[in-house]
């Protein structure tokens, strides 16, 4: 597919660069070559997790002048919340990579690096 459209595409590019039809439409300062990597992009901006637990724990600290032994129940609640949030994030990242139909940008970059663009003829 790329090979059939390739020659036509190359001719179009060379026409855009040439001075025959007036000024050249493109003046590239870098060579027109595809990169062997894909940009890292995260679609949704997440929110901060476990803020209520943290604020409850810090209020307890303020009351008890930062003595640890008196705030153990709030601290345990905070730890359980943090562990749950980490597990949830792990599961979510695995699921979304498989279900989205698209490849994760890091996986795409890894595959592209194995089969890079040929820069020299040898």
């Amino acid at each position: 597919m790329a090979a059939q459209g390739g020659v036509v595409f190359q001719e179009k590019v060379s026409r855009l660069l040439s001075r025959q039809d007036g000024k050249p439409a493109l003046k590239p300062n870098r060579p027109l070559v595809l990169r062997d990597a894909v940009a890292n992009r995260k679609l949704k901006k997440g929110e901060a997790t476990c803020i209520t637990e943290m604020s409850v724990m810090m209020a307890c600290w303020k009351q008890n002048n930062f003595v640890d032994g008196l705030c153990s129940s709030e601290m345990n609640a905070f730890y359980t919340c943090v562990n749950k949030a980490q597990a949830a994030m792990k599961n979510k990242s695995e699921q979304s990579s498989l279900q989205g139909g698209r490849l994760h940008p890091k996986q795409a970059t890894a595959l592209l690096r194995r089969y890079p663009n040929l820069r020299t003829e040898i």
Partner: protein
Amino acid sequence: MAASISGLLKPWTPRVFLVRWSRYNPYYLEPEVRKEAYSTPETELSAEEKAQRELKALRPIKAATIGVNSSVFSDPVLSKFINMLMTDGNKVLAREIVTQTLESIKRKQVEKYHKAPEGKEEEIECNPYTIFHQALENCKPVVGLASIQKGGKYYQVPIPLTDNRRRYLAMKWMITECRDNRHRRTHMYEKLSQELLAASVKEGNVIKKKFELHKMAEANRAYAHYRWW
């Protein structure tokens, strides 16, 4: 990340087996060092453990490092502490220091035990390993601060820390404090034993540092919403 990449690899045996390296292909599995895993009979294993054993028969396995041990006296936390204390690869010296530290802790505690009145003898902890673990537990911070940029300015935002990070911070504080704030003539093991004993009863400079971190986090709790994870 490594797990997802290893799913893309086909079943493969390496032509050269790596023995003394530390960076392996994610295809390699971790070695099993504990004796109990090999002494349980076939019937007591669950289905997952049997599947894991079959997988281990097919996949290449990483070489075990010198630090891990299958003896009853080996302690992964203590090994990590020895590694962090080590400079220029001098593991012998670091291990010497830590053994001398544990010995001096034991001596001090036994002295206290014999001098204590009748009622208080059971309360004094003589096992240096439990004192070490207790001291590290008391030094671990609960929340840490991260520098997050928002609107051109950098804010110190309180974030929850992973267990590994907390353990690392506790050990790092202990070691730096003992290196910087000791008298010219005291040995490292002496100063370490003093700090560990103080930390096990929640006194001392390392505990103070932990409390200062907590106070900073509490003062900056308004910025907690700048986190996105």
